[in-house]
């Protein structure tokens, strides 16, 4: 068991972040959220509650939506992470951005990166979601400004536009 790191030791982790492989030196229990924001300077991922309730820190880990505040960086070793910065080149980005703007889906903006990530995760699986699907897909993302209706409307609108194309 000598290969296992001891207390207080930093380790090297290789993580593909937005398509680029990064070598990160970190304590294994450091939160993926902190590594993304502080080491990799990807500050689009926000910290809201820090306990997995609000979804502001949502990222995709090997294609799965996760709360990055609940992922120790060691568990992201060898994985592929997509943050809101990486989503900027996603085919769904423009339709979602436009629809959020048109529907008033963003106000203070703290929840917005997570909302977009959750919406992308949903629309990749269900290109034509019913309102119930949207409500469920975004249920883990809290917004204290909009009251949600504008966000649901924006996601529905983006989905319709994407399908129409």
């Amino acid at each position, binding site marked *: 068991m000598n290969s296992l790191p001891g207390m207080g030791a930093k380790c090297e982790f290789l993580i593909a972040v937005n398509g680029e492989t990064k070598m990160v030196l970190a304590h294994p*229990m450091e939160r993926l959220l902190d590594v993304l924001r502080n080491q990799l300077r990807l500050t689009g991922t926000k910290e809201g509650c820090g306990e997995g309730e609000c979804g502001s820190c949502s990222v995709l880990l090997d294609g799965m939506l996760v709360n990055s505040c*609940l992922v120790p960086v060691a568990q992201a070793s060898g994985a592929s992470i997509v943050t809101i910065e990486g989503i900027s080149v996603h085919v769904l980005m423009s339709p979602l951005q436009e629809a959020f703007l048109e529907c008033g889906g963003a106000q203070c903006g703290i929840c917005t990166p997570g909302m977009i990530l959750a919406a992308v995760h949903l629309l990749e699986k269900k290109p034509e979601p019913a309102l119930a699907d949207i409500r469920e897909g975004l249920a883990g993302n809290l917004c204290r400004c909009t009251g949600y209706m504008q966000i649901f409307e924006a996601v529905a609108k983006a989905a319709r536009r994407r399908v129409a194309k």
Partner: protein
Amino acid sequence: MRADPAEYRLVSPGNLQAVLSLLAGEPAQWLLIAGGTDVMVLYSAGKLPKRKLINIWNIPELRQIELFPDRIRIGAACTYTALRRDDIVSREFPLLATAASWTGGIANQNRGTLGGNIANASPAADSLPALLVYDAELTLISVRGERRLAYRDFHSGYKQTALAADELIRDISLPRRFSGYVSHARKVGARNAQAISKVCLAALGQIANGTIRDVRLALGSVAPVPLRLNETERAVAGKKIEPSLLEMARKIVVREIRPIDDIRSTARYRAAVAGNLVAEFLEKLAAAGANA
């Protein structure tokens, strides 16, 4: 006070035997972490008493769902998302699939695991009443070997379990004999997603000629442990479902549970709702019998 990651150790042995060796080497010193949806919350708040963690998220043996003619065997580190996506779980164990669908939100379902829900042993856990009514059996494993334990014998008190210091939960088996049952799952809480239940129910039953043949009831958030309602089940078995039976069932439910006042609800409210949910299930069972 936020935790300092330098004060913690997290190792990733990568296979089950190596995990068991670590546990056996220093029993009770290690904490297992799978999807982290419980552990990381305590950690971030600086409330994690153990400083040494073993990563079991990447252990393939714990992530399988295997089908046998008479049972389904679910690896302890299967996520709620994996349970929801599994055809057999959805078809034959709808109470478990439904509970998985209202545990947390999608992000937490992608990480939270069934074994973690069991080991964390919260009496409010959404999936545990379903395991009680489906007669789940656990495989507990250590370097000493493995043993089978009926899930109903796992929780011995509030957050107390039968798991030895060197053991982990390897899998959860459910017998495939409930697909013909009428099932009913209800969660009463502030909202379905991301809210801990005030009361949740998992119920199964069979009815023939208007008479209850077999009934299995379990509630969450009404006692120090997820609770099977043995007394209520005995009282209604073999009876016709009529208003007087519903009234009697409500009274026995209230006698059988041990709810408390807490931040989510009151004991009085929980008792009323628990009785209502059982009555609601019996009415559903009666309706199914009438349509049969």
